[in-house]
């Protein structure tokens, strides 16, 4: 067995290395704290592998150029933080409707507005799901370690390429700026998925005509002699605009079903001590590091407390969490916001257990001791 490569990397740098391993060869973006290291490393690393980096004039242009590169078949990524993420929303919706694969990294900082630019937050949890207008599909993944930032970036590309949906890698300042030693798996240990195309050139001229049994279209990239149209308007199988209610209904439902019917493949979560737990702490991203420390300490001290960490945060790992809510007395959602994932937990709990919340909006992190206190209270 070959020796695995170990590296000391920052979370933001691990995202870039993961993206390169996944085949990302184009990055367009605009500098913004605390995501800037991603753009910086892309500027350095992409030309080394024959890829291309461009610093655009704003985030609107960053995501637009990424979608442009993707339509010619190049795996593409952008990275930003709160204010820039807000600016990107319109084109995230475009990618969702036109079904153009792309990965958007949002390294969350404290908001609203310019907020606390260098401080951690998880205040974009709802925006990541519902930021652009209209009903739309999106996948949101939130890593909790530098190792996971690497692995989950690869998975973000795989999901985006195969399901043809924008995938948002929801980082936060904690994981983005955290340095940890990680293992870079060998190329043959990592599954890399590329987008599918149609073999029959006549069929390829109908890019949105779905192969029976599939949900995502197989679109041949531009520049290969298959001529079709892409638009952000509701469109027919050729990609030409239409206002037919029948086609609109079919299209809008199908793109949502790409997520709904693949939630098993998309969903990922981690559990700890949940077998006999009476209290469940739910946390994600950077906050989950404190939450896990608190749960481990409380467990050592004899409390029947477990831990549930969604890695895919949208769609929320509903099935597993639903089952948990039926057998615990209390759920504690620990997150760096005013109560956003709490709403999703309450929806799934549907009154079957108590849903408590511990959050912060002051730009500081939640300490394990604060969460420990909440566990004590819940355990009564």
């Amino acid at each position: 067995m070959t020796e695995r490569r170990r590296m000391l990397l920052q979370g933001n740098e691990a995202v870039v290395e993961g993206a390169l391993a996944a085949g990302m060869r184009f990055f367009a973006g605009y500098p913004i704290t605390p995501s800037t290291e991603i753009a910086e490393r892309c500027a350095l690393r992409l030309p080394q592998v024959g890829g291309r980096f461009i610093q655009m004039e704003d985030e609107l242009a960053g995501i637009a150029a990424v979608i442009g590169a993707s339509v010619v078949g190049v795996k593409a990524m952008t990275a930003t933080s709160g204010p820039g993420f807000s600016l990107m929303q319109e084109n995230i919706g475009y990618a969702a409707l036109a079904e153009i694969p792309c990965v958007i990294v949002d390294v969350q900082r404290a908001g609203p507005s310019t907020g606390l630019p260098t401080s951690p937050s998880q205040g974009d949890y709802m925006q990541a799901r519902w930021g652009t207008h209209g009903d739309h599909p999106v996948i949101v993944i939130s890593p909790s370690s530098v190792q996971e930032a690497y692995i989950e970036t690869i998975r973000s590309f795989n999901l985006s390429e195969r399901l043809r949906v924008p995938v948002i890698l929801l980082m936060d300042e904690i994981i983005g700026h955290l340095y940890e030693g990680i293992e870079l798996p060998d190329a043959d240990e990592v599954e890399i998925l590329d987008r599918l195309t149609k073999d029959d050139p006549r069929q390829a001229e109908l890019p949105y005509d779905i192969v029976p049994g599939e949900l995502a279209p197989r679109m041949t990239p531009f520049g290969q002699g298959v001529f079709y149209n892409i638009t952000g308007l509701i469109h027919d199988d050729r990609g030409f605009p239409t206002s037919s209610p029948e086609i609109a209904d079919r299209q809008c439902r199908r793109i949502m079903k790409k997520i709904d019917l693949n939630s098993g493949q998309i969903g990922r979560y981690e559990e700890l001590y949940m077998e006999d737990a009476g209290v469940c702490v739910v946390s994600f991203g950077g906050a989950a590091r404190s939450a896990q420390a608190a749960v481990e300490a409380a467990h050592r001290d004899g409390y029947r407390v477990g831990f549930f960490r969604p890695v895919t945060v949208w769609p929320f790992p509903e099935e597993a969490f639903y089952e948990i809510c039926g057998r615990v007395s209390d759920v504690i959602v620990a997150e760096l916001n005013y109560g956003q994932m709490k709403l999703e937990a309450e929806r799934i709990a549907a009154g079957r257990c108590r849903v408590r919340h511990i959050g912060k909006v002051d730009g500081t992190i939640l300490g394990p001791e604060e969460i420990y206190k909440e566990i004590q209270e819940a355990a009564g």
Partner: protein
Amino acid sequence: MAGRLIDKYMRGMYLPHKWCAGCGNGIILRDVIQAVDNLGLEKRDTIIVSGIGCSSRAVGYLDFDTIHTTHGRAIAFATGIKMARPDMKVIVLTGDGDAAAIGGNHLIHAARRNIDITVVVFNNNIYGMTGGQFSPTTPAGAYASTAPYGSIDPDFDIPALAKAAGATYTARGTAYHVLQTTKLIEAAILHEGFSVVECVSICPTYYGRRNRKGGAVEMMKWQRDNAVPVEQARKIPPAELEGKIVYGGLWRCERPEYTRQYEAIINSALPE
């Protein structure tokens, strides 16, 4: 002739187009296709990008790889396409609002980079798709649904704006001057670098009606009688050119092209 161009370059099943009767956009689209045909561009080597608005619906009718993007962002999408496939010809079809208002920032930065993209601006001096609001090229004093007392906003000179920002080829044509405009678009496509051709269209439905410019025929006659070739205009005092359309090739220079410069970066960064 037009029939042959339609068969060769257009998606016949989606015709007739949805522009209003008397709109100048169809003529400008024909000029674009004629230029592509004259140059013998291969369809598979050409990607056509548009934004949002009357002008930008043009791409749907063209049997190329076409992408109708979001309002103002056509040049930014095109930048990503050109960076990812520098070997492709990338042509942007856009409008006055799309290119010079909501997308103005992308226009100037693409010009600054001198990336090899050709931008054809269908300038109808109004927001037609939304029903006649004033645009950045509506002349001051003109009426629009959002300028019921006359516009107090000065208008942009798009080629001058592009030149100032670094474009290396700029030109202006009109819907009336079909032959000349076709040649200008050809020159822009051949030019290696960022090129902008403003094509002054006519909008009898919104701009013409509200400003008592008459119908399509009167507006075309006005273009014929008020357009001055640039060579002639250079000999006329600026005051006498007030309200006229100066057309022709306006500016050309040579500067390193962006994607070629990036190729040099790749060559220096690639491991030996």
